């Protein structure tokens, strides 16, 4: 052991402490850097030297600079992030729906429903000119249908927004995946499988951040390789393997109603990506289940309102009859039995009456029109129905090229109208759209029959009566219709329109409540994990200050040691 050797030893110590201080400085510098994992210098005694029978230490040496991180905790944190991202999107979707519905305000559909049925009651109250009252009811009907259409359109827009976000997420996935892939290569190059596997600290932080972003989008499984690279898989399919990445792309499909559905796929084999968490899962859930489901429920509600209201409505007559009428719905095959002809409403056997009214004589001629749909020979088709109607004196009926039934009065002296009773209701008038109030069978298409909105005089056609045309003071049908909203409906398994609506709202409210709690829970969980992660990997300035002082002192002591040895050398030199 020479003095020079001792100086060398002290010099090594100074160097090690300098490196230590650099790491501390780096830690302090990154105290506020998101995702930064604090680093630690691993010191170890330098190899010993045997001089004679003595074994002398040669000072300190630095083994490695390691990141203080727990890869298992990181995985959990990424998973929690994915779940939270998914839940957040779903909660937002439900909140948006709630806002759209606007329940608990005075502008919601339940208010429109109440005012619509209120307007019908007003007809039967007869306070004022009946035609104006009828017009008012028709106007309320238009408001109601416009509200339903608006809600549907807004919800549809929301759905489109989620679809667009799904489609945009592909670019993000590719971006982060590419980042991870590139960092993989650099980390492998730098670390080259050496030290304790975390030499490329900053790069790793960068990669961790990219992985965190990726896992917010998709529920990814990350496995670190001995080389320092990570492999990333999603839904069992590999996304990144070492230095190779699979490109993700979007395929769009469109259905008849202009609804676009985007799907994320791998570009190489066109396989679809399945994920059980992450924003993408949240977006898919929001688009298909939450908003899509709501749109379906709303469609069912609109269809229930239209078809069941129409069934009752079509049994009534207006203050004036029709001189010509074309069914609002068309059939695909006019010679097929009506229940298989492509009509939106379910039909059964039954009958209705065609009333031919002569205003001059004030007399009505009633004809029973039987609808036979027992599946045996001789079932009613649109053609046979047209023939039956055509056989009635005073009216002509035919099926036009579009598959619609056209009925016309033979002369201006007669008007025709329809009647029926609940025991023999077949649903044909409602299904074909003859003498109906609503048209359309979805929330986006529901509207008031244009027969009623075609100028102020058309309001007289509002079927308020049950005792025939020309009985302008009979409001029996209006009275019956005014209770429609609370009437048990067979088509809704005995539920009423109101309770169907309530159920729809209730479902959204309940889902929103649940989604809110789930998102809160997942946030807390993520925050807890983050706390744990920070406990391990976060920078504490005080800790670093202590470390810094320790290193400084060691440095000072080492320097003093060198000076002491130097003094010894001086003594020696001055000998």
């Amino acid at each position: 052991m020479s003095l020079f050797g001792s100086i060398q030893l002290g010099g090594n110590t100074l160097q090690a402490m300098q490196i230590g201080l650099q790491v501390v400085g780096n830690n302090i510098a990154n105290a506020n850097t998101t995702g930064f994992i604090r680093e630690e210098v691993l010191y170890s005694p330098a190899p010993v030297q045997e001089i004679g029978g003595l074994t002398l230490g040669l000072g300190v040496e630095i083994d490695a600079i390691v990141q203080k991180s727990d890869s298992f905790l990181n995985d959990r944190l990424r998973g929690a992030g994915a779940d939270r991202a998914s839940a957040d999107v779903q909660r937002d979707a439900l909140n948006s729906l709630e806002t759209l519905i606007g329940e608990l305000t005075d502008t919601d559909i339940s208010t429109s429903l109440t005012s619509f049925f209120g307007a019908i009651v007003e007809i039967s109250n007869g306070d004022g000119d009946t035609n104006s009252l009828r017009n008012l009811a028709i106007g309320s009907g238009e408001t109601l249908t416009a509200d339903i259409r608006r809600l549907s359109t807004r919800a549809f827009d929301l759905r489109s927004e989620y679809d667009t976000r799904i489609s945009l997420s592909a670019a993000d996935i590719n971006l982060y995946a590419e980042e991870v892939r590139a960092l993989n290569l650099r980390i492998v190059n730098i670390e080259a499988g050496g030290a304790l596997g975390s030499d490329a600290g900053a790069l790793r932080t960068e990669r961790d951040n990219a992985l965190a972003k990726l896992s917010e989008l998709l529920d990814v499984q990350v496995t670190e390789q001995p080389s320092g690279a990570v492999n990333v898989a999603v839904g069992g399919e590999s996304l990144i393997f070492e230095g190779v990445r699979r490109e993700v792309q979007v395929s769009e499909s469109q259905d008849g109603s202009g609804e676009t559905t985007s799907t994320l796929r791998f570009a190489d084999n066109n396989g679809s990506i399945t994920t059980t968490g992450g924003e993408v899962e949240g977006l898919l859930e929001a688009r298909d289940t939450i908003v899509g489901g709501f749109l379906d429920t709303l469609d069912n509600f609109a269809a229930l309102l239209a078809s069941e209201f129409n069934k009752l409505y079509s049994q009534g007559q207006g203050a004036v009859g029709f001189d010509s009428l074309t069914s609002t719905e068309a059939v695909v095959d006019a010679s097929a039995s009506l229940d298989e002809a492509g009509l939106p409403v379910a039909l059964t056997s039954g009958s209705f009456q065609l009333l031919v009214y002569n205003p001059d004589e004030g007399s009505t001629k009633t004809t029973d029109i039987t609808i036979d749909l027992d599946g045996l020979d001789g079932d009613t088709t649109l053609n046979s129905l047209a023939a039956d109607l055509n056989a009635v004196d005073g009216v002509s009926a035919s099926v036009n090229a579009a598959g619609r039934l056209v009925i016309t009065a033979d002369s201006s002296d007669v008007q025709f109208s329809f009647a029926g009773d609940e025991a023999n209701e077949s649903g044909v008038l409602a299904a074909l759209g003859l003498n109906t109030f609503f048209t359309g069978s979805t929330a986006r298409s529901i509207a008031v029959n244009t027969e009623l909105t075609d100028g102020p005089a058309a309001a007289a056609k509002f079927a308020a009566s049950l005792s025939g045309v020309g009985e302008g003071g009979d409001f029996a049908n209006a009275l019956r219709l005014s209770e429609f909203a609370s009437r048990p409906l067979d088509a809704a398994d005995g539920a009423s329109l109101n309770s169907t609506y309530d159920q729809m709202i209730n479902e959204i409210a309940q889902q929103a409540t649940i989604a809110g709690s789930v998102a809160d829970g997942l946030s807390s969980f993520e925050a807890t994990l983050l706390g744990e992660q920070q406990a391990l990997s976060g920078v504490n300035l005080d800790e670093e200050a202590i470390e810094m002082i320790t290193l400084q002192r060691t440095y000072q002591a080492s320097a003093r040691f060198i000076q002491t040895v130097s003094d010894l050398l001086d003594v020696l030199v001055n000998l």
Partner: protein
Amino acid sequence: MSTLPIPSTRVSDYLVRERLVQQSQSDQLEIFRLQNQISTGRRIFQPSEDGPAALRAITLQRSIERNDQLQTNLLSAKSTLGEADTALRGVANRINETRALAIGSSGSVQTDEERQTIRTGVLASLDQLVTFANSRSQESYLFAGSRALSAPYVQRDGYVEYLGNEVTQQQRVDTGVLFDVNVPGDEAFGGLSEPVRGSVDLNPHTTADTLLSSLDGGAGVVVDGSIEIAYFAHSSVVEAETATIDLSGAKTLGDVARLIEENGPPSANLRASVGPTGLIIETEPGSATPGSIAIREVAGGATARRLGIAEETQTTQVTGEDLNPALRLTTPLADLLGTKSAARLQLPGEGNDLILTATANGDGFDGTLVSFVGGATVGNESAVFTPGTPPTLVVTIADGQSTATGVAAAINNIAGQPFEAEIDYRDVSNVGASGSGVVTASLTPVGTTDTAGSGQTLDLASGLLVTNGGDPFVIDTSSAETVEDLLNLLNNPDNGLLASINSSGSGIDIRTRRSGADFSIGENGGTLATELGVRTYTGASRLEDFNRGSGVLIDGETPEEFAALNSFQITLLDRGTSTVFNIDLAGAVSPEGQTSGVETVDEVIAAIAAQTGGALTAELAATGNGIVLRRADDVDPALPATGTFNLANGSFDITTTQLGDAANDPDINVVVVDGTDTGAIYDADAGTITVTLDITNDVPNLNLNTQVANVAAAIDALPEFSVSNVVSTGAAVAETTVGGALTGGYDTDSILITGNAAQRLGFFDDDQSGRLSNNTSVTSSDVNTIEVDSVFNSLIRLADALDRGAEGVPDVGEAINRLDVDLDRATNARGELGARVNTLDNLKIRLEDEEVQLRSSLSLEIDVDLTEAISDFTARQFSLQASLQSTASILQLSLLDYL
């Protein structure tokens, strides 16, 4: 904001800062939320903030909105009722005034002028009451029933016609509660007569198209389940096959029959038809050894029983019970009364069976032999029906080529369409093949009608003779095909009638809308009115209803007096012989010595027949209404008197030119005197015919014959006599007086009806003492007319009675009595209105209470509890302050400061 665990090992600055930021964010968010709650007063803004409460709130909000609507309805109802009440108050006052006015004229001391003045007052009241009855609330007439858009009462030709109906308008004043908000004019003022109730059950036939909902008199049969049909092989008691048939989709009897045929036990080969009164189900039709069936309920259901076909005992044919369908507007008139012949022709081959139904009732089509002969081409099939015994139906077809559809068309095309032919769906095994099977020619008849027809069809050709005030008019029913057509004809606005199907669905009711008119329906020479049961004057009409309810019989103290007051006399003059029949309407004397009198028109007819010993018969008028008295023999015309006068040199017969009894002169002399020839002079008083002849030829320049012939010629020249059978010897006559008699003259046969009872039966008017007729028959006028019980009727009758002067006095009294009834009616209607207003007031209070309750519940659900919110707010505020302070402190602490 949930609380997060603090890591137990070490803490990083980053975490501390993040947490502090989160903490203060969360505090600020909460403060903002509380601030929002306080400023808006609302606790929740989105349903998800408190799902259950939000849902309750939605229901509450709806209830409140509904409640508001109900209160509006209620106000509207109240105002309508109030206006009606105001109108009716005026009515009561007016009736009272008119009554007071009329009472003054009910004595006989008034002059006609005074009566006319009162009459003018009565007519003014009438006008005013019509105005009251046409009162309006907003746009609608208060007393028009549901025909509220046009005036209910219209004055026309001196009558007041009620154009409203009996419907009570309703409004919804509470959930599920409909409230009557008007009183139809008929109820307040009167407006419609009692209906002429169809006394005959028109018994509509059941057909394949008969709706299940119209069965059981319109109550409907609910077919919501299944039936079970068990099949037993021929002469076996062991159930061979069982089929459960779901009938729940059936809406008509035809549906039921087809479902049974389609789904019955296959071996039973069931044939289900709709007979004239119900279902008929046969096993293996056409088989010589048919099996049998039993029809049972499934699982305690009632379907088979309701359809009248439940049959526990095995049988080859189940003939269902009478299902009693109700009359509907669309019921064809041909389907009323009687039954029609029908057949299900089973032709060899598949898809070619036919159902034939006669289009008219009666047995004329029973056993029709149906045969098919070749000779036509496809599409040109023809058929000929020949009535007779048996009737035949021969269809000319293209042998083996014509389809059943073509054959059916040919049968339906026979002029007058005796039969309606349809394809029988039973004859196919695969859907779509019906009617496509071909028919082959056969020399022998292939089938006959198997259901017998009966009864007859309505006599629509004759129509009805209706009097509804004014002259009788005929309602021509020949064009009517359905019940509705008939009702439309009757309801023609010109007729002033209201005809409808009665509530039990068995016949039609006809009423008059005309107050002040006498209404009756009679035959127009046919039988329609009787068949429909709407004749107002029938054998069963009760005498007590006659003469506007004052009846025919008059009470007497003793049976003798009763008999005397209630009898009338018919004096029958036959060839000068007069027979008086006393017709005693007192009827049989009971063991107690009391007589009740005859009660019905039939009894009057029987009494006349019995008490005239057949010399006279009585019957109902064939045209119009009334009793026709008809003599048994013909009417003999009046004859002159004749007598033979024998003079010395000849004889002659004298016949009076005057006819009748008055021409007889039992003691008449022909006196021949000598003198200047001046011809014959007839002195009726002395009973002598004096013929002056120059017998002695002493008058210059006269050269006359004085033979018997000259005497005869002179008498013949008299206007009173004609002479015949002159026998003259040529010798001159001497002065002579020949006595003789003119006999054999009698009056035209006649019927004379006298007696008050006859007047009350309508044989003559109350200002006549009797009715004499030289016709074979005498018809009474219709004194069993129907009138509207209304205040307008009373006033019009009162005005009429006043117009008739002193004679009308009794009717004035009657009219005043009726005004009392009218007043009661109006008062009752007012009372009814009052009660309703009262109920509405109660409902209103309840609705208001409910509203308060609902609003407070709603407030509990969604409104913020301010105290709580404000204290929370304050607490949060402190918490935020503390948090901010500690944040600042923590962030300032650093070891570096101490270095």
